[in-house]
């Protein structure tokens, strides 16, 4: 069986430039929304996964959910520190402070973490980008890259006031896009004192061998002197973003599906018009010996080519979104969290499949109508 050359379908699109542009434009917008939502979710996940080190564990008070809500008593922290599996441990305090943003003056919650030199060593992804690291036992702080960009009073040499004290900003650190980029770090003992805290928020520890995690978790969680949750750092941060990530993906995917109905209707209108306008042509093709199946394939190919054009335009626009950074409150920790749109190969393929489904759904009915035309009627219509 002979098939109709692809050029026939593509050239038909080229002839009706305005119609093609409008239909593909509608599809491009849907692909843009679809891809942008997936990119946002991917960016959030990437920030969270890169925050956790595979051999680190986080110990918080049982069912506290986040470090801010947690409290670990000093003797409990010492007990965790002294476990044989633990190589280094950092007892930390995590609080939120309300700080105005640089441009708008809007007040938002910033996570402040008090930690020791061991704590810094537990995060190898953190590097000083400007200035220097804070000195132990001083009221110096360093701020994460995305905090320094967005919040007032967080430049090197400036002073922040919280906990009835002034804190000198001595450096800006780059935590490689992880959640630490949205934190302010200072000396743990100084912070405990000025916030009048008696207990730590969490204990972060590195294990000599990550395989011993399960045994350690079981022992610590069943120890009657402790009421703690023990989690791998990576798992802990994934859980921190679960609610936000779920919200973004559910809302975004629902919207994409609803919007795609609009774009499919657009494709359907265009393809029905194409079939109606070319009835005579279809009759001629059939008379030349092309089968119904070949006609069906040619019109489906036209719809799919339309979708492919929409996909290319939409994805190109979405990839520009990678330059945009989003910062919002994470519902689990109530602190600001910055992340960016991230385009992954998986998203490229997913959006291509999505566009193809739109093109197919929009083109299948008109193509069937074209294929069902009888030769005589079609030729007479011309």
């Amino acid at each position, binding site marked *: 069986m002979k098939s109709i050359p692809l050029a026939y379908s593509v050239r038909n699109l080229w002839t009706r430039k*305005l*119609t093609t542009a*409008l*239909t593909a*434009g*509608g599809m491009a*917008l*849907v692909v*843009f*929304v679809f891809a942008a939502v997936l990119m946002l979710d991917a960016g959030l996940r990437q920030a969270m996964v890169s925050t956790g080190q595979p051999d680190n564990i986080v110990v918080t*008070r*049982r*069912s*506290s*959910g986040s470090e*801010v*809500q947690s409290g670990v008593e000093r003797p409990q922290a010492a007990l965790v520190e002294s476990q044989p599996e633990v190589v280094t441990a950092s007892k930390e305090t995590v*609080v*939120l*402070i*309300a700080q105005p943003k640089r441009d708008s003056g*809007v*007040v*938002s*919650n910033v996570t402040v973490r008090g930690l020791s030199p061991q704590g810094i060593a537990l995060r190898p992804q953190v590097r000083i980008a400007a200035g220097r690291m804070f000195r132990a036992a001083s009221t110096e702080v360093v701020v994460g890259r995305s905090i320094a960009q967005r919040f007032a009073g967080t430049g090197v040499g400036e002073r922040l006031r*919280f*906990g*009835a004290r002034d804190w000198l900003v001595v450096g800006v650190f780059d935590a490689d896009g992880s959640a630490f980029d949205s934190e302010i770090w200072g000396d743990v003992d100084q912070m405990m004192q000025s*916030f*009048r805290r*008696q207990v730590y928020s969490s204990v972060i520890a590195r294990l000599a061998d990550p395989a011993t995690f399960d045994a350690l978790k079981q022992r610590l969680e069943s120890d009657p002197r402790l*009421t703690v949750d023990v989690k791998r750092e990576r798992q802990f941060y994934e859980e921190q973003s679960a609610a936000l990530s779920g*919200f973004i993906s559910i*809302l975004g995917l629902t*919207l994409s599906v*609803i*919007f795609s*109905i*609009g*774009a499919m*209707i*657009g494709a*359907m*209108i*265009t393809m*029905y*018009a194409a079939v109606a*306008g070319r009835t005579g042509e279809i009759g001629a093709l059939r008379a030349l010996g092309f089968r119904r199946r070949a006609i069906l394939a040619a019109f489906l190919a036209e719809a799919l080519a339309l979708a492919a054009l929409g996909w290319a335009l939409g994805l190109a626009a979405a990839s520009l979104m990678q330059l945009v950074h*989003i*910062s*919002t*409150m994470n519902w689990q920790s*109530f602190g*600001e969290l910055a992340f960016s749109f991230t385009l992954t190969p998986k998203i490229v393929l997913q959006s291509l499949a999505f566009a193809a489904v739109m093109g197919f759904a929009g083109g299948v009915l008109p193509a069937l109508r074209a294929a069902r035309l009888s030769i005589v009627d079609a030729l007479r219509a011309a």
Partner: protein
Amino acid sequence: MRQFLKLIVRNTLRHKLRTGLTVLGLLIAVLSFGLLQTVVGAWYAGANAAAPDRLVTRNAISLVFPMPLHYRDKIRAVPGVKRVGAANWFGGIYQDPKKFFPQFAVDGAQYFEMYPEYRFVEEEKRAFLRDRRGAVVGRKLADTHGFRVGDTLPLRGTIFPGDWSFTVRAIYDGAEARTDTSQMFFHWDYLNETMKRRVARRADQVGVFVVQIAEPARSAEISQAIDAQFRNSAAETLSETEKAFQLGFVAMTEAIVVGIRVVSFVVVFIILAVMANTMAMTARERLSEYATLKALGFAPGYVAALVLGESLAIALAGGLLGIACTFPVAAWFGTQTGTLFPVLAVSPATVAMQLGCALAVGVAAALLPGRRAARVRIVEGLRAIG
């Protein structure tokens, strides 16, 4: 004029399938635009329900830090203050973290005096005030989880460790549609006494004070007077109107609100592309008709008005159907999401915006085709084949 309208109606119905599909597309777009605007509106529900005579005092560092209980008496002594109630965010887990709803420990009697929009059955309210472990739940919350008066309500503490058990003593209704009835309240004293036994150093600590003032016009002045009381103390305070306090929460998730707003306009552009395409195709097919009309002596403006009229007729049909569907769909969405959005009501402003968008799409879609129809040269148009 009658003839003009008749022409438009006839033209609209000429391609029934195409018109039907375009109307369906518009319906979906107007519907989703309306739903998105309603969801954005729900974000501001807390701020809209705020009363002008209520202030909120919190620790100046951030909400995470509490204030000592004795601040209550000092605040009450500030001139212009009518009532003060302590409240703590409890943040407990009911069965599963996904079944989230807000829980507050409050100064029972004082607190509800300040919130007249919570309507109680008087007997139930008295029963709540008598029961130390009693709890009050809102109507929407009660419907979502099937709570009834007399039920036991167990919570697992996150901020306040341990297991907690309450008895539902009263269910409150909202005085208005915008009142949040997805919350749970229980006695602050019960929380405090239990904390005294479990973790003594965390007793007598208050999350926020809700302050009722006699004259709303003096709110700024009274806020300053309250904060002045505690300047340079261990826990400095920040007082603001309830509305400003609620808007502060909205501002923190601003990026999401902006995202939803942007997306709700994207759908309008999608449908604009579809609609413009329909009109362009229609105009192209009918070029010879337009030329005939002009040859008969009709002015170019008349021909353009025909295109515009048809476009507006389709847009209006889709828009009105979309608006009609918004109400039942929003109601259904509200029951599906449970207590996630405390208040989900389609506002008159949303309906006006939906109608405005539909009309704008109708006009914009007719611009190019209308111009082409008006400008077509008679000879050229008569020669044209669709």
